[in-house]
């Protein structure tokens, strides 16, 4: 299974990206998106926020593959839209 890395973008520029160096194995990009949404939901619910984060809704997952290529961006705000579409 391919490994995807769920880097967190919280502001523009290099200092605004928290790098996921471990990643998770998932079957494909669609599964990576589901994983990102469920992690974002859990993070928002727990709200264990470092001072660098003002609002979780400003954050997004920049998902990269094993070659370091950006494959998908999942804004945390997509969790709200998903619920609306319900």
């Amino acid at each position, binding site marked *: 299974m391919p490994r995807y890395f769920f880097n*967190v973008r919280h502001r523009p520029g290099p200092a605004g990206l928290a790098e996921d160096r*471990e990643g998770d194995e998932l079957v494909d990009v669609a599964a990576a998106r589901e994983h990102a949404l469920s992690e974002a939901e859990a993070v928002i619910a727990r709200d264990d926020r470092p001072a660098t984060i003002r609002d979780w809704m400003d954050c997004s997952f920049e998902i990269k593959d094993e070659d370091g290529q950006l494959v998908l961006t999942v804004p945390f705000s997509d969790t709200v839209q998903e619920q609306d579409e319900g």
Partner: protein
Amino acid sequence: MRQPLISPNQQIKQLFFPEVGFSSITTQGSGGKVEIGMVGREGLVGAIPLLLGSDRTPHDHFVQSPGEMLAISAQALCGAVDESASLHKLLLRFTQVQYLQTGQTAFVNARYQIEVRLARWLLMCHDRLDGDELRLTHEFLATMLGTQRTSATLAVQALEGHRFIKAQRGRITILNRKALEDLADDGYGLPEAEYARLIEGA
């Protein structure tokens, strides 16, 4: 993943004196696992339940940072404590410090943001390590701090941005202990001061 020392609700057969490396004590519910204590070369793994009259505990005890530990059977330890009032008192003082450490964990979990909790946790590890390098994943760190991996990753990045630590895959290196102490503020130090008073000063 991590070597078990004392498993939940199992009769305690052996206790452990870490010499190199250290152990974690965790509690677990349906929402996952959280660390409630850490024991290294300053202490005895299994001291609390056994000295307080129980032959088992619901808490899990396992090796967090690998090294060397001396093992003693529960029977031998109880025998030694029966024979020596001063040993008994010393070990009870250690259980008091462990109780304070767990109380401090409750305090920081309730009152402090993730970076402060991470700073305190790194300091506790550093106290029990030879050198400045800690081997761990963010997944494990999240479990220890009772948070999501994403929050752990963000907190690591925040401390790294200040150059307090250096993070690489599977490891964290402490670069500036003093800065971590300043950040942790009164989240760190109370049980450590009581250890110095009750045990090192004894």
